[in-house]
């Protein structure tokens, strides 16, 4: 599986570390809604198909990336820097 890092270009998955499901939203820190916290911490939809997730190019430029990856084919359908400001003028890989 290759991940096309916007800074480094396509690199082997062994250079990256998975940083979690990017579809979750954290409840308000003041919330005491135990179900909302339980869902946030433990429950995952585990889709068979496109999934949004964070990866870090730990063995490369070390940036965090936001991917849309098909869990059936490992095709990376979209990739961007997780920090939105970096996506302007990212230039060539």
């Amino acid at each position: 599986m290759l991940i096309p890092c916007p800074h480094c270009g396509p690199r082997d998955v062994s250079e990256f570390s998975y940083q979690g499901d990017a579809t979750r939203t954290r409840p308000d820190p003041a919330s005491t809604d135990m179900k909302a916290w339980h869902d946030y911490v433990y429950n995952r939809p585990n889709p068979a198909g496109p999934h949004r997730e964070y990866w870090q190019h730990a063995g490369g430029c070390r940036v965090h990336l936001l991917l849309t990856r098909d869990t059936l084919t490992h095709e990376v359908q979209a990739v961007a820097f997780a920090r939105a400001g970096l996506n302007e003028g990212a230039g060539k890989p």
Partner: protein
Amino acid sequence: MVERVSPLGEAFRPGTYGNLAEGPGVTLTEATPAAIAEASAFPGSTEPLLAAIETVTGLSLPATPGAGAVGDGAAVFAIGPGRYLVSGAEGLSASLQAAVALDIGTVTDLSHGRAALRIAGPRAEWVLAKLFALDFSPAAFPVGEGRATAHHDVFAHIQRTGGDQFDIYVFRSFARAFWQELCAAAEETGYEVG
């Protein structure tokens, strides 16, 4: 100033080794410069950071991924968005710290944390291609440019410092192991240590 010793120790053995049927295909040396620093820009400040790097080193480069430049006694290349590895003479880190304003970014002295290993010669691209999944051809990896990658979790910052020459920056604590790996990879082409 604390005097540095080479991390390669007794693993550094000058001589020629391996398959010398066509002469040594590569030369391996330690090229650790007197000073190594990482200069990092705060968001949106890459251009002023590059201007400060140019003031100190005389090297100018565009704010594009992988960009780099090599000069007399100094080298710089991108290791991530807004992050640059700068090497040069004694006092480099202090000069950079003075040139990079507090609102532009940060400078971290890595002189005692990294070692630079140099591979040069007609088979350098071939030997490196055995270790890293990168395209080392001159078209894809021109002189001056840099890449951040890893070899089995040994992080490596690689700069092409000549037509057939690459400098590989690794953590000092990994330098001896990686040096031995480099020697093993060069057995096939023959190598000279000097």
